[in-house]
């Protein structure tokens, strides 16, 4: 689905989240020249067609004690990666599961999963269990643990210039 310029203006306004005031959709709309009903309708349409994955409270894992977010990368044969990706993506411990291109010779991995836990030991145990359960233990994989967080904020999408 193509987003209209009006949708993109709304998307840009939504990147910082909704105002914490009694009528947040109305308040957000006022800033970009839309009434409350139009804001609600456009958000509902984007949620229905998958542009919006979910609408709600976005938590910061680290501040809640989930300090070990391993990015586990897998080298899965091209013919099997969709099936393996779906099995891994269904695991409750997995919070992201994407296929991405290999970049040989430096980068052989084509499947990326994010697995959150409170500590490295707990996450390493979870990775081993997940690999066993999803039949992916035999494929080459590596866990990349965070050392330092230099930046984390919401992605900036949409048409900001048109809104201002």
């Amino acid at each position, binding site marked *: 689905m193509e*987003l209209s310029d009006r949708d*993109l203006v709304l*998307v840009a306004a939504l990147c*910082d*989240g*909704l105002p*914490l005031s*009694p009528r*947040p*959709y109305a308040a957000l709309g006022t800033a970009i020249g839309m009434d*409350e009903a139009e804001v*609600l309708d456009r*958000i509902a349409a*984007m*949620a229905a067609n*998958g*542009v*919006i*994955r*979910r*609408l*709600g*409270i*976005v*938590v910061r894992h680290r*501040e*809640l*004690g*989930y300090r070990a977010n391993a*990015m586990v990368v897998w080298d899965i044969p091209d013919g099997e990666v*969709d099936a393996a*990706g779906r099995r891994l*993506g269904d695991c*409750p411990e*997995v*919070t992201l*599961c*994407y*296929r*991405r*291109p290999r*970049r040989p010779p*430096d*980068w052989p991995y084509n499947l*990326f999963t994010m697995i959150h836990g409170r500590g490295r030991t707990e996450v390493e145990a979870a990775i081993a269990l997940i690999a066993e359960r999803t039949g992916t233990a035999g494929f080459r994989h*590596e866990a*990349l*643990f965070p*050392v*330092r*967080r*230099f*930046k*984390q*904020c*919401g*992605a*900036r*999408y*949409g048409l900001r210039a048109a809104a201002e």
Partner: protein
Amino acid sequence: MPILDSIDRRLLSEFQRDLPLEPRPYAAMADRLGIGEAEVIARLARLSGQGVVSRVGPVFAANRAGCSTLAAMAVPPERLEEVACLINAYPQVNHNYERSHHFNLWFVVAAPRRDEVDAVLDDIRDRTGIEVLDLPLVADYHIDLGFDLQWN
């Protein structure tokens, strides 16, 4: 980690998705929690201030509302802070982590269009003299239901 009472915990666990699409969503949440609308708003403001809540709103699908990519660099350890700082300064960069690997710097670049993403990656290559792996999304296998918080 901040101290959270049982209402905070329910707020964080039960409203990561399906935020009510109605004029007064915080009032609808308040009804479910058995508290007042003003208290929901005050709690969300406090949790935001404490850094526990990033925001209340939509999570966009990567490459649907705009264009994004995951980028990785193998930065010599003595240059890591300098390069991370340079990357942080781009408004298009929304995550930037050091990770335990030869490719030790991982960041996400998001923009309305792909050519703007490419321009940022090229600029970073030029300014640092270090190759940047561009790893755009090919397929998404996870349905995002929010994060399953375990309170123990």
